């Protein structure tokens, strides 16, 4: 199962990457801490690591390391606005529960 972006999210990532002026794509990953077990990581990527899985979604290169991939398979990332706040949102089929804030989750 690939990791994907919605069209809106892809457009934003493209624009952020262009604005930054460098980078090969977007790295998605998992960090194992937070109030409910795991937390999402989203970083600009300057290089592709040896074991990375590489996905293409609406023209954006997504990089996921193998340890994270097992928790992220099938995840789709969207970009939304909530009031004045705006940012990226994950919908992850592996997620079985998340803390109230949604910043960390369990599988």
């Amino acid at each position, binding site marked *: 199962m690939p990791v994907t972006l919605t069209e809106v999210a892809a457009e934003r*990532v493209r624009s952020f990457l262009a604005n930054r002026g460098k980078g090969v794509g977007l790295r998605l990953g998992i960090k194992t801490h937070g109030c409910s077990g795991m937390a999402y990581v989203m970083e600009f990527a300057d290089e592709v690591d040896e074991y990375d899985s590489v996905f293409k979604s609406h023209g954006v290169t997504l990089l996921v390391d193998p340890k994270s991939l097992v928790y992220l398979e099938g995840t789709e990332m969207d970009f939304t606005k909530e009031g004045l706040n705006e940012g990226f949102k994950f919908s992850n089929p592996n997620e079985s529960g998340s803390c109230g804030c949604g910043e960390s989750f369990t599988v």
Partner: protein
Amino acid sequence: MALLQISEPGMSTAPHEHRLAAGIDLGTTNSLVATVRSGDATTLADQKGVHLLPSVVRYQADGVITVGQAAKVAEIDDLQNTIGSAKRLLGRGVSDLKTLAGQLPYQFADTEAAVPKIRTIAGDISAIEVSAEILKTLKIRAEASLGGDLKGVVITVPAYFDDAQRQATKDAARLAGLKVYRLLNEPTAAAVAYGLDQGEALDEKIIAVYDLGGGTFDISILRLNRGVFEVLATGGDSALGGDDFDHAIAEWIVQQVDQSTAHTPKQLREILVEARRVKEALSHTDVVAVTVGHWQGSFSNEQFMPLVANLVKKTLFACRRALRDADIDKDEVADVVMVGGSTRMPVIRERVGDFFNNPPLVNIDPDKVVAIGAALQADVLAGNKPDTEMLLLDVIPLSLGLEMYGGLVEKIIARNTTIPISRAQEFTTFKDSQTAMTVHVLQGERETVEENRSLAKFALHDIPPMVAGAARIKVTFQVDADGLLNVMAEEKTTGVKSSIAVKPSYGLTDAEIETMIKDSMLNAKADRETRKLREQQVEADRTLAALDAALACDGEVLLSTEEQHTLQRARDALVASKQLDTAEVIKTAIKTMEAAAEFYVARRMDSNIRTAMAGQSINKFKD
């Protein structure tokens, strides 16, 4: 579900530990808040999508405080309670009011306090409180937009703001519940927004920042050297802005429209509104249709140019003067940055470009460029960038000063001053015929030499013998971009010089610096007492030295044995009092001795006058 942002590689934060930061442009007429999200610096809008917050605060009797557009709308009807130019009052004392009060429509409260207060229906309000309300509104907007509490902010201030005005800005931020990472000069923020500090070349370059706002004009000449900005000169006109360009067009319209009837104030206001619209439209097209009442016409950039030539000339004159102050040739200016909505006018861009022989930078919205620069700086200071991209803008961690007679420290450069910096102060000799002076350089916040850290000591020799207080010794402290301190001492009449170089922060850890600052806070009261005591001890020494010198000179001649004994007793009492650790006792003993010696002083003066007159009469006879 929280919304996530993209981080720099390796800079992701743990959940609930986001390093949210913002940059705030606290302006005279409008304020803005900006932040960096997913690497992109943008200004933040309110619920209605408006970015600019008018810097206007209205106080009502029921305690309701309105900020921004709603307050601005009410300004005409409620002038006394609606405060619109608080920035002009920030950090000003009651004594400054005389020059400012004429420009401001407020009633000032009669107050004993040093800070002027404006009398409103909701009580007496200081400029700091007004500014705090504006900052609070922007804080709420930023936190709603970022989905969390702000860790810290960078607030911009005009380059010419003095220490009191900067401190007042910080006080306003504290009142608003904001942590200030740093105050940033507005022109520096504009230069940062354009990434001028990020260049590959390490060579220094000169940047001119041309800031034409609604009602004020500022020109700043900056020097960028390895990431550090230094303000070389500032200039401008606090009564020249975009509004003057509106008036120029309005006058033209009035001349075109039928002149047989006088215009009512309402018509004039309509003409002014139309003039403003025409001016703004001319930034996008060359010719604009003008409509006032039944009159219709058209106005072009070609017609606009000669109308405002004098206004533009005025700004360029200020530019020339600032360049001269900075001792910079205009061809040395590498980049010209445009700030302020009025710089959208093509006529301005063209003439400024011609003046500097260099097309100005205009890509970033000139209304937002200062806030964007502040946001970029705040993002770095919050720790969202890898260290390699850290800006080198830096400050002096602890005050630098000199040892004075009596073991007291005179601070020359205050803590938190941004480097590079150069400050000079003049000192004099303490004793008659003193021919050398030790310059002892110290670092720290305490009042006495023992409590501070000694950095270096050197001597200035060959001071010509003079009476105490006549020599003029200029001591210059200079800290360069790397924190390297150079101290130079020069006797002004002979030009004798001596100097030393030290690295002040060498060997001090952050914890040590923190302890030193904390100690100065904890011991503030004791330090004040020590200072008072030392000052009196020094004063006692000075008085004793003067008495001894006089006695040695003519004590035997002018005083009887009895009188000499009286003075000796007073002298002994003062010497004894010096051993006591009470400033008041020493002060009284000095007074007592001065009183005891009064007759002697009078007698010496008489004697001197007699001698002088005698000498003169002999000369006269000779002639």
